[in-house]
C-alpha cells in the first residue's frame, strides 16, 4: 500500500486505538473492587438542590465505595430542578433545600408520582461579607431592606460609605426561595447578582470589599475567607452566628430543614440508599460538610 493510504490508516488506527487502549489500561490498572458478597446493584439518579450538592456527592461517593455495583448520578441545578425531575420521573431522588410546594405536589400526583418527604438535615443560611467590612451584625429587618433594594449603602447599616453589592442565587435555587419567603416575606429581590451556586457567591464576596451574600453555612467552611455576620431577630435581641448549637437549638433566625423526596416509599437499592442517608453514616458525612444533623440519634 502506498504512503497516503498508510498514513490515513495510521491516523484512523490511532484515533480508535488510543481511547480504547486507554480505557482498557485504566480498567486493568484500577484498584480491585470490593470482593465482598454484595448483591446491591442498580442505578440511582439524584437531582436538585445546589445547597445539598456536595453532601449528595459525598453520600454517593461513600455509598458506592461500599457497594461498588451501584451506580449513582448526582446533579444540581436547584431544588426546583429536582421537583420537576421527580414529577417527570427523570430522577429517583430529589434533593431540596425547601419544602415541596402544594402546586408541585398536585402536579406530581397528576403525573402518577407520590412525593414522600424525608428530612435529612438542618442548615443555617450564613450572611457573609468581606473580611474587611466594618459591619459585624444585622437585624433580620436590615437584611430584608438590603435585599429588597431599600438600603443601598453600607453606611445605612453601620458600615462605611460604599454601595452595597448584593450576591444571591438564581431562581431555581431552594436557598433563593427560602430566603425570599422567610427574609423578604415573599417580595422580590432587587438588584442582586444572581450566581449559579453557593460556591460562586462565597468566591465573589471573598473578592469584593463591598459584597454581601447568602449561602448555606457549609459553604463558609474550609478555604473561603469571608466574615460571617451575626443575625439578630430584632434590634434588641442577641445576635447569633450560625453554629451547630444555634441552628439545632433554634436560636439562629435563618435556619431551615433540608429534605430529600422520593416517589413513594422506596425499596431495594433505593431504599438502602435512603436508609444510608438518614442513618448514622449519612448523617456523619452531612456534619463533616458543615451541616447539622436533624436525626436525633445519640447527640
Amino acid at each position, binding site marked *: 500500500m502506498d504512503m497516503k493510504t498508510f498514513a490515513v490508516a495510521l491516523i484512523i488506527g490511532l484515533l480508535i486505538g488510543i481511547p480504547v487502549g486507554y480505557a482498557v489500561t485504566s480498567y486493568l490498572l484500577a484498584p480491585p473492587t470490593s470482593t465482598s458478597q454484595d448483591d446491591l446493584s442498580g442505578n440511582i439518579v439524584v437531582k436538585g438542590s445546589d445547597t445539598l450538592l456536595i453532601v449528595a456527592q459525598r453520600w454517593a461517593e461513600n455509598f458506592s465505595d461500599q457497594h461498588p455495583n451501584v451506580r*449513582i448520578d448526582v446533579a444540581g441545578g436547584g431544588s426546583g430542578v429536582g421537583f420537576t425531575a421527580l414529577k417527570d420521573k427523570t430522577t429517583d431522588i430529589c434533593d431540596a433545600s425547601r419544602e415541596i410546594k402544594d402546586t408541585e405536589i398536585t402536579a406530581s400526583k397528576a403525573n402518577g408520582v407520590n412525593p414522600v418527604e424525608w428530612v435529612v438535615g438542618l442548615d443555617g443560611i450564613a450572611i457573609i461579607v468581606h473580611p474587611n467590612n466594618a459591619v459585624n451584625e444585622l437585624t433580620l429587618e436590615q437584611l430584608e431592606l438590603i435585599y429588597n433594594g431599600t438600603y443601598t449603602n453600607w453606611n445605612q447599616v453601620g458600615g462605611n460609605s460604599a454601595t452595597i453589592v448584593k450576591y444571591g442565587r438564581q431562581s431555581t435555587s431552594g436557598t433563593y426561595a427560602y430566603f425570599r419567603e422567610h427574609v423578604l416575606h415573599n417580595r422580590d429581590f432587587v438588584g442582586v447578582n444572581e450566581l449559579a451556586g453557593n460556591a460562586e457567591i462565597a468566591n465573589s464576596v*471573598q473578592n469584593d470589599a463591598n459584597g454581601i451574600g447568602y449561602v448555606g453555612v457549609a459553604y463558609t467552611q474550609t478555604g473561603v475567607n469571608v466574615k460571617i455576620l451575626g443575625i439578630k431577630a430584632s434590634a434588641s435581641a442577641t445576635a447569633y452566628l450560625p453554629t451547630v448549637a444555634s441552628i439545632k437549638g433554634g436560636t439562629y433566625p435563618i435556619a431551615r430543614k433540608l429534605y430529600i423526596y422520593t416517589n413513594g416509599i422506596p425499596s431495594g437499592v433505593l431504599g438502602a440508599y435512603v436508609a444510608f442517608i438518614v442513618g448514622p453514616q449519612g448523617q456523619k458525612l452531612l456534619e463533616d460538610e458543615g451541616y447539622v444533623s436533624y436525626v436525633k440519634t445519640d447527640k
Partner: protein
Amino acid sequence: MNKKILKQRIYFQIFRVVTASVIIFILLMIGIFITNGASAINWTFLTDKPREGMTQGGIFPAIMGTLYLTLLTIAFAFPIGVASAIYLVEYAGESRLVQVINSAITNLAGVPSIIHGLFGFGLFVTYLQFGTSILSGALTLFLLVLPIVISAAREALLTVPKSFREGSLALGATKWQTVRENVLPYGLPGILTGAILALARAAGETAPILLTATFFFSAGAPAVPTSLLDGTMALSTHIYYMATQHPNPALVRSLTYGTALVLLLLVLSLNLVAIVIRTRHRRRRNW
C-alpha cells in the same frame, strides 16, 4: 514622497504589533492554563475517579464520558454527513430539492449551540423520555456537527477533477462504481479532516450536553456509562461544575485547570492532526 513611506511604515508596524499582541494574548491565556494545570496532571489524575468530595482523585469518568459522547456523535454524523455530501456533489442537479437541502444545511449550521441544547432537552430528554443520557447528548451533538461533516466532505469531493469521473464513466463503470473507486479515495483526506474537526467540536461543546447528558458527579465501580440511557460526566461540563457549583472552587482550582488543560490538549491536537492532513494532502496531490 518620504512622508508617505514613513506613514506607511508606521501603520504597518502598528498592524504587526496588533497581530502579534492578539496571538501573544491568546498564547498567554493558554500558557496560564498550562502552568496552573500541569501540576495537577499525572497518571492518577487521568485514571482515577474523583474522591473526597471531588477535591482529590482524578477525572477518569469525565474523560471516558467525553470519549463516549464524541464517538457516538461521530458514529451518527459521519455516515449520514458523508452520504449527504456524496449525494449533493455526485448525484444531485440544480433542482429545487437541492436548493432546499443546501438551505437546510446552512440554516442548521447557524443554530446557536444553546438552542440545540434546548431542543435536545425538549425532544430527547423529556418528550421521548430518553432522560439525561448519552443517547440524548449524542443525538443533540449530532445535529450540531452534521453541517461540519457535510461541508468538509462536500468541499473534498468538489476538488476531485471532473476528468476522473468522466474517464471512469467512459470506460463503462456505473455511477456508484465511479464514486467508490475514482472519486472517494481522492476525497478521503478532506473527508477525514472534516470528521476530525467535527470530533473536536463535539468534544469541546458544553451547553448542549449540560442540558441533555451530564451530571455533576457519577459514582459506581464503572463510573462510566454502561448503557445508552446512562448519564455521564464530561470534561467540558466538569470544568463548568468545578468552577461554579463546587462548594470550594478555590480549593479545587488546580484540578479545574488540570481538566481544562486535558480538554485543551485533546481539542487542539485533534485540530492539529486535521490541519496537517489537509496541508499535506494539498501539497501532495498532483491535480
